[in-house]
């Protein structure tokens, strides 16, 4: 690949791509792609899963190579750093060097020895490396409602909070070319609006934007729209970036039509539950009951305590050994092991995905759900292997069942983890932002599957932010705010977050 950087001219396009070609295995992903990004143009880009959106972004950012020519022309007269910054759709904290050995429950464990930097220290370091003024970061922190996280350790952040941290860094740095892959995932309604305003401000100062998203509510600075289908197809507006759902639903495997084997009518009962880390209280006086077969939606702002609440249910939180917590009809800490609990629960969350060992194949990853461990090496008995095969077919993963999980697009990885979750026909399914990082079409397909899978009477707790991202089966809602229960109610038609939520800030 030819990759040129020129410094001179304002007249030159910011990015000029000619004859770009990319193959993955035997598939052509990018085919003779040409793209000119002129100064003043800000693009919104979309494409189906596997269309190469992320690859294209990485190629422009110099993180991946391909055949073809790319020129990037920075404006030497600009105060903005002559850099391309790419913000990943789904940030893997694990990628940090030297901290690869964390495990995902670690952020719930109280350890006196602090292992990672605080958010503030991390930002200070970033500012120092890039000669930035910290007061500017303060403005972004406040605007994005991130003040509460200032003193948190990096390990304590949820995936949505990590994403915000990456966005804060990007908006603070203001590189001449900023590419953001799925900027809105994991952000609540209010943060999305703020982000759009901040992106508009950055564009006004001369940052060229490429956003990869199919969201209709893009910042107003966006003035060009394109679909990626091997080459770039320009369209007139964000609405035209919507893709048709094309995945047919298949017949659900027989073993999932049978209702789960419930041992109690009561799945979860919480009476005045409090959880704190030192001085910081993350859950206050929580009272909540989930009965068998119920379908719950759990909502709340980033940092409202949702993932802590869920970790209590899944046996992942050391402070779950407390009075007032009952799981499957029994008080917690009455001789059950976490493996007994996990055997009845299927769970996915972005954090779980972070720490999942993605070096196994799709087939093995699904099979490992039978044993609640990560990855699998042993042969399964025939009846169990057959269940895995049925699920692989149902989820449309047959073609890629022997591929290594970590090499696949995010959407396929999530489908694999959903299949892993469901393989034991659990009593309780916990889906914590299962669609984070997926586009709308993938999300729709995923939620249709959830509706189908739950129709056998499985109990569901689903965490999700937006109306488009919710399965129809949901019937009850619990909303957390700053660690307390704000709302518990029945819902008939799933709505967006309640109106008063949008006024916060």
């Amino acid at each position, binding site marked *: 690949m030819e990759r040129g950087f020129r410094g001179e001219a304002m007249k030159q396009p910011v990015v000029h791509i000619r004859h770009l070609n990319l193959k993955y295995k035997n598939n052509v992903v990018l085919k003779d792609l040409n793209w000119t990004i002129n100064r003043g143009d800000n693009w919104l880009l979309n494409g189906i899963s596997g269309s190469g959106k992320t690859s294209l972004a990485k190629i422009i950012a110099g993180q991946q190579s391909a055949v073809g020519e790319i020129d990037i022309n920075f404006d030497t007269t600009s105060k903005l750093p002559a850099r391309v910054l790419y913000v990943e759709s789904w940030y893997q904290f694990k990628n940090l*060097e030297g901290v690869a*050995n964390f495990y995902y429950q670690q952020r719930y*464990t109280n350890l006196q020895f602090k292992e990672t930097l605080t958010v503030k220290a991390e930002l200070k370091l970033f500012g120092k490396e890039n000669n930035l003024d910290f007061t500017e970061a303060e403005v972004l922190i406040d605007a994005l409602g991130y003040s509460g996280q200032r003193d948190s350790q990096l390990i304590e952040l949820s995936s949505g909070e990590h994403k915000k941290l990456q966005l804060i860094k990007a908006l603070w740095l203001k590189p001449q070319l900023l590419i953001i892959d799925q900027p809105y995932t994991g952000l609540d309604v209010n943060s999305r609006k703020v982000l759009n305003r901040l992106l508009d401000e950055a564009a006004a100062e001369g940052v060229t934007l490429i956003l990869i998203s199919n969201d209709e509510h893009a910042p107003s600075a966006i003035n060009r729209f394109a679909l990626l289908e091997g080459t770039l197809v320009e369209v007139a507006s964000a609405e035209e970036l919507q893709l048709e759902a094309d995945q047919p639903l298949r017949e659900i495997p027989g073993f999932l039509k049978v209702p789960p084997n419930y041992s109690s009518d009561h799945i979860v009962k919480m009476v005045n539950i409090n959880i704190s880390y030192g001085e910081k209280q993350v859950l206050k006086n929580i009272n909540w009951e989930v009965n068998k077969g119920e379908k719950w939606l759990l909502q709340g702002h980033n940092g409202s305590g949702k993932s802590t609440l869920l970790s209590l249910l899944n046996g*992942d939180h*050391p402070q779950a050994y*407390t009075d007032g917590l009952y799981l499957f009809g029994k008080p917690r*800490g009455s001789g059950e*092991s976490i493996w007994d609990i996990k055997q009845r629960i299927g769970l996915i969350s972005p954090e779980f995905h972070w720490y999942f060992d993605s070096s196994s194949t799709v087939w093995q990853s699904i099979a490992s759900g039978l044993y609640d*461990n990560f990855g699998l090496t042993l042969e399964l008995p025939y009846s169990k292997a057959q269940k895995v095969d049925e699920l692989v077919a149902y989820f449309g993963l047959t073609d890629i069942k022997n591929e290594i999980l970590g090499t696949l697009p995010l959407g396929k990885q999530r489908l694999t983890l959903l299949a892993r979750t469901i393989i034991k026909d659990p009593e309780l399914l916990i889906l914590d932002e299962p669609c984070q990082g997926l586009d709308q079409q993938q999300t729709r397909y995923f939620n249709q599957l959830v509706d189908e899978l739950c129709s056998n009477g499985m109990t569901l707790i689903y965490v999700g932010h937006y109306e488009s991202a919710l399965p129809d089966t949901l019937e009850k809602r619990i909303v957390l705010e700053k660690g307390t229960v704000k709302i518990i109610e029945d819902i008939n038609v799933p709505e967006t977050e309640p109106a008063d939520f949008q006024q916060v800030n």
Partner: protein
Amino acid sequence: MANYFNTLPLREQLNQLGVCEFMENSEFADGVNALKGKKIVIVGCGAQGLNQGLNLRDSGLDVSYALRKEAIEGKRDSWKNATSNNFKVGTYEELIPTADLVVNLTPDKQHTAVVNAIMPFMKQGSTLLYSHGFNIVEEGMQIRKDITVIMVAPKSPGSEVRSEYLRGFGVPTLIAVHPENDPEGKGLAQAKAYCVGTGGHRAGVLRSSFVAEVKSDLMGEQTILCGLLQTGSILSFDKMIEKGIDPGYASKLVQYGVEVITEALKHGGVSGMMDRLSNPAKIKAFKISEELKDIMRPLFQKHQDDIMSGEFSKTMMEDWANGDANLLKWRAETGETAFEKTPAGDVKIGEQEYFDNYLLMVAFIRAGVELAFETMVEAGIKAESAYYESLHETPLIANTIARKKLFEMNRVISDTAEYGCYLFDQACKPLLADFMKTVDTDLVGKNYNEGKDGSVDNAELVAINEVLREHPVEIVGRKLRKAMTAMKAIKTV
């Protein structure tokens, strides 16, 4: 108190040193039943104490912590660790009398004092558990005859004990029953149940003895695991600075290099690690590691001899009685090394580059692993034990260096390991002085392959590969690693 090992007749010494049996998975079919409903009280809530306790509780067992008064009143870290994770905490008087199983997870040097303080409170017929046999073997601690004394020793730092458990696996573990204290014959059943509670049964368990565990554990940690990693890291860094390599680059190469290089040991042993090198680099690394083995062998032997005779534990306890004078001095010196004080630079180093530019460390590791293993086996320790205490644990310790350099390593390991590590380091650096004069940046800091055409003598390469693969540590390693992965998939709890 007399050194227990030295009071034994030779026949019995050899007998206990030779206890080593790889346990079948079926032996753990009873799960945690032998401890179900029993009160487990852990004394001390540090690296091992907290993490073992979290695992046991998550396995459905009843766990609480007895801490010394000062720790409770002063709300020390140990108290915070336990209470903030919702464990019941109490004094010895409050909790020990209720305990069916008392677990002593205080620092080894404190054991005599701690055991003397808790023994009067222990109920008739209860059990005392250790995670390291130092107190029993080296100090000859006498335990009341109605009490059962067992050992469950996870072969890894406490954080790993926890993280592997939560991944659904565990860490390899040694278990033992003290032959002088098994009045009811229940020791083994309880040790197995405890091992299941911590997850160790999923990763391979060796039935060992207090004696075999102590003599091999001390040897491993002093030489290859901590001592040599420390010496090798410091010498490598200093050499690069001497030769004008950028300090930030040097610091990063050394800090993360050991982790990346030893990761290869996990999968393919020493030969797997050497296979990461190009042919010419492998031949070179082989030759210098042979040279290193010759130079360091007497030092490895001295460490093993001093461990066997009790000389090591005697000097360590003397230093302790002397206010830890040497320990504190050496700890301070380690904190002041140029490597420790130079932050890792903001440079990208690719995975393969850690091998190609750090041949010296690959050679150190091969030499250290093989020497430690050979020396242990010569001293009467069985190959399986020697494997766990050398090759197996090396990547786990290397990981701590990657996190926060040598300071972190020495913080995480036990107090006996830290002392032994410095002892080795003090002796090893002068021993290698002449050798280090011959080392240039092709071995550390720059790519060894640069400017070479890659051609090698076929016969020589074949011969070297053969030597590497047929080493006894490789033969036993292949067997144990296979058993470990097979076990990973079987869920018994």
